[in-house]
């Protein structure tokens, strides 16, 4: 009975899904395909110099070449793999860091919560981009530093959300019932709290990915992202920006690639949040 009921509810969910969410899902799937199969899809390698500088669109280079004579289309495709993978990795790290500490703060309360919350307050007291620039200038550039710094700074936002959501659950009578039964902390986290904060956390993951992705793109654009010759979208905009003043929109393509993925994720998250808030009342 419950299997068919669940099947029906999925069908109903799909029927009621707004156009924006469907577009979002389709686009995310397309990006996933490009990210996974970049080596197959890209005509050339990302560092391969295959033509003259700034060749126009058409012929062997559908989107022309860049300042070093590398194929734009190939670099766009490789850029998907590089940029999305780094952003995803950073988001996962930020998420693990933030949600684990947030849960601990909520479940243990007391001084654990005090210390963690104060540290997060301080980290959040500086605008994230400024803090990132400061830390990167001290640590030096590099993918490792980039991922770590952004993961820690974005983890603070996840911490806030996970802590608040878990706090809401911790005051529920069913958690008190479990504590009175004598359950340990691990049980409380795993069985009572986590299943009940999964929905907002998943939405937060999407949101976080957007912010991380945009931050990494911004840093790449500022010249502090992935080191050359790796193709990444923010850096590609920077390298070819001069073309815009000549009326050539090629540098806008990687920027658009960033924008479209972020919009897609945001559309899906917006729908999920809307659904969650609608179910509450």
């Amino acid at each position, binding site marked *: 009975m419950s299997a068919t009921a669940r099947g029906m509810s999925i069908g109903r969910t799909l029927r009621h899904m707004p156009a924006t969410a469907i577009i979002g899902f389709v686009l995310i799937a397309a990006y996933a395909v490009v990210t996974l199969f970049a080596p197959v899809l890209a005509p050339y390698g990302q560092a391969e110099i295959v033509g003259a500088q700034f060749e126009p669109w058409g012929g062997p280079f559908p989107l022309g070449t860049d300042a070093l004579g590398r194929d734009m289309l190939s670099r766009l495709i490789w850029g998907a793999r590089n940029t999305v993978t780094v952003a995803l990795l950073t988001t996962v790290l930020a998420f693990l860091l933030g949600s684990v500490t947030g849960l601990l703060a909520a479940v243990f309360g007391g001084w654990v919560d005090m210390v963690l919350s104060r540290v997060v307050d301080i980290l959040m007291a500086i605008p994230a981009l400024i803090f990132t620039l400061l830390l990167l200038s001290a640590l030096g550039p590099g993918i490792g530093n980039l991922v770590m710094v952004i993961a820690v700074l974005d983890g603070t936002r996840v911490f806030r959300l996970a802590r608040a959501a878990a706090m809401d659950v911790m005051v529920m009578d*069913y958690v*008190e019932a479990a504590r009175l*039964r004598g359950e340990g902390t691990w049980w409380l986290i795993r069985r009572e709290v986590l299943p009940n904060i999964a929905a907002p956390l998943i939405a937060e993951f999407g949101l976080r990915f957007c912010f991380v992705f945009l931050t990494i793109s911004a840093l790449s654009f500022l010249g502090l992202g992935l080191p050359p010759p790796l193709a990444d979208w923010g850096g590609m905009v920077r390298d070819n920006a001069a073309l815009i003043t000549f009326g050539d929109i090629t540098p806008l393509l990687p920027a658009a690639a960033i924008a479209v993925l972020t919009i897609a994720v945001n559309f899906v998250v917006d729908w999920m949040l809307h659904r969650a808030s609608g179910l509450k009342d």
Partner: protein
Amino acid sequence: MLLDIRNLKVEARGEDGWTPILHGVDLQLDRGEVVGLIGESGAGKSTLGVASMGYAAPGLRFAGGEVLLDGTDLLKLPPARRRPFRGHRIAYVAQSAAASFNPAWRLLTQFTEGPLIHGTATRAESEAFARDLYARMNLPDPDNFGLRYPHQVSGGQLQRAMVAMAMACRPELIVFDEPTTALDVTTQVSVLAAIRESVRDFNLAAIYITHDLAVVAQMADRIKVMRHGREVEEAPTRQMLEAPEEDYTRSLWAVRSFRRPPRVLPEDEVPALRASGVTAGYDRGGDVLRDVSFEVPHGSTVAVVGESGSGKSTTARVITGLLPPRLGQVALNGQLLPPRLADRTREQLRSVQMIYQMADTALNPRQTIRQILSRPLSFYRRLSGKAREARLRQLMEQIELEPNLFLGRLPGELSGGQKQRIGIARALAAEPDFIICDEVTSALDQLVAEGILRLLSRLQDETGVSYMFITHDLATVRAIADRVVVMQHGRVVDSGTTSEVLDRPRHPYTAELLASVPEADPDWLTRRIAEGAG
């Protein structure tokens, strides 16, 4: 005729389009007449009440029928032309005055808002009228009362201020939507008196919405019983009270007559639970409990009675170990319980169980009933496999729910009463000696609540478990308790067997509490006012 609602249909937005919640209801009201709407939750009382103002709450819509006020069909008017009626000719008094007054403005400013919007009076006239009404409502310092902000005023006073505000434009009709439900009984009397007096003095028509038969008996000329968005029956108050025609109405009336047969409890050397000299408080705050002592004999039910803030729930927290007391101790079967939860053995934890007021928040919405009930079985009794499944089924039969139907469900798929039964089964699964029932029936409709009380007393007869029954409702106490402990301001002011305490009250507070509980007799409030209360 002032108000004539004909065949009114209202729908609510659900996941799959619109579902009807009022299926064609009629309501007629003459000037100066008070009609009481009574029914359980989901009956559509409030929806009907505000519909008389041409208003549907967000998420609801009118799907048919007419709302004629003095012959004008409000539903045919566009929203902008309905507004001149609201607050002007028909006013509204909400359940929670604390939430329904805007926290940003003074009471007087909110009083004069209506008259100024509708142009019925100047600010000066309106303010003078406010002071007059505040005085009639027995509000303190009526000349300056309106200068306060809502958060500076107590609940009962705020509710009276809201009644005054409803009268600001001298309306012809007021809709009272459970105006005393959120109040303590001793406060309720003064608000009821204020409402009835003003309705009479100004010859108002009123719709009085409540789930409490005794309250509506004091207020209404006529009573309409509603259920599931339909009218059950309607009759003048006395006739409705004495000779209801429908079975449903009779069952509603009968709820209050449930009495457990009196029992002779065996003399007990060592009680199931003994609290001695408990003094407790939160963090660095003052003492919430002061020197609280009482006993719960084996196999008995002891009701702990008091109004909000009397320390009933804090007492429960001390017993369960959530709040270690500052002084005093708690003993179970003669053995001292460690004050802190963390220091108690699994066996001690098993012996004391708890049932909560809000079944909604007491069950984890992400666990099936099977998971919820299995955990105490495996945790305390180490049951698994077939043995656990057999015990699960036995528990479900004890609480009168069909195992095959319910074990696989999530709490969200159960009704309020069913959820409360699962809460009982979870406590029972531990095979405890002592169960704390914290207002277990106060969030439930009366018929459902009665079923829970019957179940609890039957389970006690079967298992010999002792109950500490926390409640503010004296009818519940009479129905189920062997002994009563009365609390006020964190102290035990009276205790004894139920008949000792309730039939011949020795303490003035117990007497006041008893006298404040409305009776299903239309003359009760008149008598009570004559006796000088409020």
